[in-house]
Every structure is written in C-alpha cells, then in structure tokens.
C-alpha cells in the first residue's frame, strides 16, 4: 500500500453539519400535548420507582373498623376501599404494576417478534410465508380475547403465577404487531445499496440482519413500542378488571375499578381515580408515540 499526501485531490467541499438531533427536539416539543404526555410519563415513572417513599400509607394494610369506604379528604386524600386500604397509596403502587407489565411485555414480545420479522423479510420465500402466516393466524384473534385465553390456560396449569401470567399472555398477543412492522421495514431497508455492499464484502446473513437492518429499523419500532405500552396498560387493566390479572392483594388499576364500580354513586373516588389514571397514561403514551413518529419520520423532513 502506498501512503501519500493527497493535497491535490483533497477535500474541497465543506462538510455538512448534523442537525438531526435539533430537528428531533424542535418537532417533538412543538406540540404542547406531546410535552404534556412526556411530563405525565416521567412523573409516573418517578412515582412507580419511589412508590414506598411517596405513599402516605401501606397499600396492603387493612384499615381498622370504621375506616372502610371513607370519602376523599381528611387523612386519606382519596378515601379508602372496602377493606380500609388507602386509595392514593394503592393508586401509586398500581402505577408500578402497570409500568412493569407494560415494559416487560414489550421487551419480551419485541425480543421474539422483531427477529421473526427481520428473518421473514430478509430471506423471503418459504421462510417468509411460514412466519408471516403464523403471525396472521395469531392476529385473527382480538388481542384482549387472546390474552384472556392464554392467561386462563397458564393459570389453569399453574405454569406461572400472579403478574407473570398477565405479562406472558400479553407478550404473546402482541408479537405479531412487532413481526409485521419489522417485516415491512426490513423489506424496504434490504433494497438499499448498503445491504448489497455487505453481501459484496462477504458479511454473514446474521451480521447483515442484526448489525445493519435492525439499527435502521429502530425509528418505527420505537414509535410502535410507545404506542403499544399504552395499549398494554389498557389491556392489563382490562384483564385485572375481569379478574384474570394481578392476584389480590396486589394493587392494579383495573382491579381497583372493578372493586369501586359497586359503589358507583356513593364513592366516586374509588373507581374514578384509577379510571382517570388509566386514561391519562394511555393518552400520554399515545401522544408521545405520535410526537416520536413525527420527529423520527424522514418523510416528514422539510414539512415539519
């Protein structure tokens, strides 16, 4: 190899400075609702993380006689439930359950669904057919129904217990979502010349799929994750409302709504507060997801 000074063929062109990050911030924070959603989520994560420090009472401690079904105000800010447990404390611990279910399920299903989608899209042909038709088959069932079924089966056979039933059931139910999005993105990414460059230099398929296609598929996946977190928390609430979710005395928003709806008229805070919490979090996740999509979508560059 020769070494030489290449002054005559040097770099006369000025390099373009990166402004991606700046554009991301501008688009993302432009809408007030997105910022609001982000604030809600940050607060919720803090609340879930520091729950023992923030709660005024032990969420599992049963109240004394006369402490059940207290109205909001006074010592118990949001009142107490039938067993005299503090609603606010249970609400904060419920955030823990909701976030845990959401994040772990997203992680598990992404861990399975994303590779499936990449493999199907990259190899195509029969492999693609088998994987994607299997995903379509799972998708035939409504997410909540499938999760309900899976949770019931898992519970029946005592495979796992408690919160993990919900997590596993929901994870399986949302795998097809990941596989489909990743599959679609992979199909478009693999047409790029840099993938052909990898083949020309002799990279293995694994390297191409997970070093080159996966990082480029990230933006739409981040958006999907955010959107699905909202949907998962809603589904978890639905499952616990139906009595399939978290075992008592664990605090879950869905179960709290179920406990409270019998006192629909005379103790509003009991069902309304977890209901609002669910609505707020799902809304926040959707808003942040929307903001991320706008900020990460290269097709909107120049428009936003």
């Amino acid at each position, binding site marked *: 190899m020769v070494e030489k000074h*290449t002054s005559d063929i040097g*770099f006369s*062109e000025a390099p373009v*400075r990166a402004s991606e990050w700046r554009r991301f911030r501008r688009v993302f924070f432009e809408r007030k609702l997105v910022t609001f959603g982000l604030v809600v989520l940050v607060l919720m994560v803090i609340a879930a993380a520091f729950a023992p420090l923030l709660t005024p009472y032990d969420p599992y401690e049963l109240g004394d006689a006369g402490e059940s079904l207290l109205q909001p105000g006074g010592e118990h800010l949001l009142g107490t439930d039938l067993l005299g447990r503090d609603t606010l404390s249970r609400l904060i611990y419920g955030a823990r359950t909701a976030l845990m279910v959401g994040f772990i399920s997203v992680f598990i299903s992404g861990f399975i669904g994303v590779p499936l989608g990449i493999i199907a899209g990259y190899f195509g042909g029969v492999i693609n057919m088998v994987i994607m038709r299997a995903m379509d088959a799972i998708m035939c069932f409504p997410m909540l129904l499938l999760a309900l079924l899976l949770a019931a089966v898992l519970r029946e056979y005592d495979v796992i217990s408690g919160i993990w039933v919900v997590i596993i059931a929901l994870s399986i139910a949302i795998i097809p979502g990941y596989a489909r999005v990743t599959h679609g993105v992979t199909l478009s990414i693999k047409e790029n010349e*840099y993938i052909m*460059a990898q083949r020309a230099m002799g990279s293995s398929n694994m390297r191409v799929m997970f070093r080159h296609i996966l990082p*480029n598929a990230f933006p739409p996946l981040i958006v999907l994750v955010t959107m699905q977190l909202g949907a998962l928390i809603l589904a978890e609430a639905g499952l616990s409302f139906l009595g399939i979710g978290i075992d008592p005395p664990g605090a879950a928003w869905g179960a709290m709504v179920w406990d409270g709806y019998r006192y629909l008229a005379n103790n509003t805070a009991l069902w309304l507060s977890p209901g609002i919490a669910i609505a707020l979090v799902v809304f926040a996740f959707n808003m942040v997801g929307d903001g991320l999509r706008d900020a990460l979508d290269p097709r909107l560059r120049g428009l936003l």
Partner: protein
Amino acid sequence: MNPLKDEAILDVRDLKMYFPVTRGLLRRKVADVKAVDGVTFKIRRGETLGLVGESGCGKTTIGRCVLRLYQPTSGSIFFEGEELSSLSESKMRRIRCNMALIFQDPYSSLDPRQSAGSIVGEPLKVHNWVGSQSEYNDRVEQLFRLVGLDSSMTDRFPHEFSGGQRQRIGVARALACEPSLIVCDEPISALDVSIQAQIINLLEELQAGIKGLTYLFIAHDLSVVKHISDRVAVMYLGHIVEITKSRTLYENPLHPYTKSLLSAVPIADPFVEEKRERIILKGEVPTPLNPPSGCSFHPRCFMATPECSQAVPPLRDVGAGHQVACIRV
C-alpha cells in the same frame, strides 16, 4: 514491462444472466429478461477495462455477476484462476476479500447508522484481516488518508459528509482488504462534474500506487471511460459489440453502434463542433424481454442488410486485439 500484465485476472466466458418474469399465484415463468446474453471478455492484472453502453444494456448486471451478487444463468467466470459461478457461498466468502465494489449512489451505499470509520473498517472485521484493535484503528486511519479524507473524521456519520466525500468513503471501504479487482459501478455518475474529476484522479492514483490493482469500470460517459480505461468494451442489449484498446476505439470505431455513440459526444471546440457529423439512430432500444433476431442492433443500424437478422454475429478479431461483433465490418 510488468510480467503480471499478461495474466488474466478475470476471465468471463459466455456469461448469460436471465431474469425470469413470473406471473400469477403459482409464480409461473412467462418470459426471461435477457439482461446479459453471452458475454466473453478478459481483464489483465493491473488493467482497467471500461464497460460502456446505454441504461439497461446489462453493464451493471455483468458487474454484479462477476461479484456473484447474482447467480449467472450460464457461463463461467474465472477470477485468479478459480471458477466462481459454481462455488458455494462459504467458499465465495474467502474470495470476496480480493474483490470489491464501488457503487453509483454515494447516498444509499453507506449505512446511515454507521460511523464512517466502521463503514471503512467493516471488511477488515468480516474477513478477520487485522489482528488487534490497534491494528484495526491504524488500518482505518491509513485508508482514510489514502483516499484523501482526514483521519479525524472516522467517528462522523455519512450524512455529515458531502457527496464526493461519501464516495471517497466508498472507495476506502472497497480498498480495505487490498483487493486485486474493484468493480466500479458508475462511481461518478451521481456526482458533480468537479467532484467527478477528483474521484477519477483518486482512482487513477490508487492504481498507480497499488501494484496489480485492476478495475472493471462501468460507465455511460464516453469521455470519462476514455480517460481512465486501457481497453473499452461497448455493450448493446446484453451483448458486447466491440472491445479494443481505448485509443483505437476512439480513433477507429468499427461497429456501427460505437460509431453512432462516439458521434454523439459533443466537442468543446465550437468550430469543430459545427462540422461534427452526427449519426442519429432511429427508433428505441428494443426490450431485452424479446430482443430482435440475429444482430440485436440491426433494426436501428444504418448499415444493416437482410443477413443481419439471420444469426447473432460472433465477436471476431480484426487485428491488434480489436474485436467486433458485426458481419459488415
């Protein structure tokens, strides 16, 4: 003279690449696109073979077949004495170290999520070309300097470079494992004219500096090809119609297609330009789905006779390594 000069590094014989056209649910094959239809040529070590022709004539397909990015329909490709078209992909991987590809589009040929340094260094990792991390870093920096980029730019990302700089990164990547053959697939067509010259000069300087570096230079710009190539092959609809030394081609084109191509090149001198005789071809390029019988150029040829539609004219020698596929010459 260099003794290596006479050895054919690449020997392509009767290469055919047909792409099937399928239709319907059962993917029934209804036709073939004959992208490359019986092409034979050799490149000697250290030489540059220019491959010219209009869009869709199969130049890029040849380049990709040579690198086994496409599995040829038939024919053989000998690279450094080894037959490539029947090798398994795992055996092929070892050979890929010695051949590289430079792309036309410097925007889509670099992974946007990879830093420039790791793009250039990737072949080194794929082929375990370096022993240690420090060797790797040294090699990447050396490659950056070699193509005229500042070695402090290694951790920048592709979008932070201009088009010409990105093409330099592509060149550095191609050079990483010291290949003996580089297929340049229209490496300058997507660049500004001033940058084109820089990249051409860079490629020439590299060839002068690296002993035995061979280019298969695919382009549609005749003047650029003339400048860089030792020999030029002219393609029309999947066939090579003329192949000769680049001087000879420009001074004494024999095939009617080459003549018409050269007559289309504008001349910078207005007086000469005024007198330039243009050969305007009639009609359009036929579809490779259903090429004309006999010489595929005969429907548009100004020298055609009825015999031209009878048989495909073979590439025959007319002296001094000048080969033409035309029965009228």
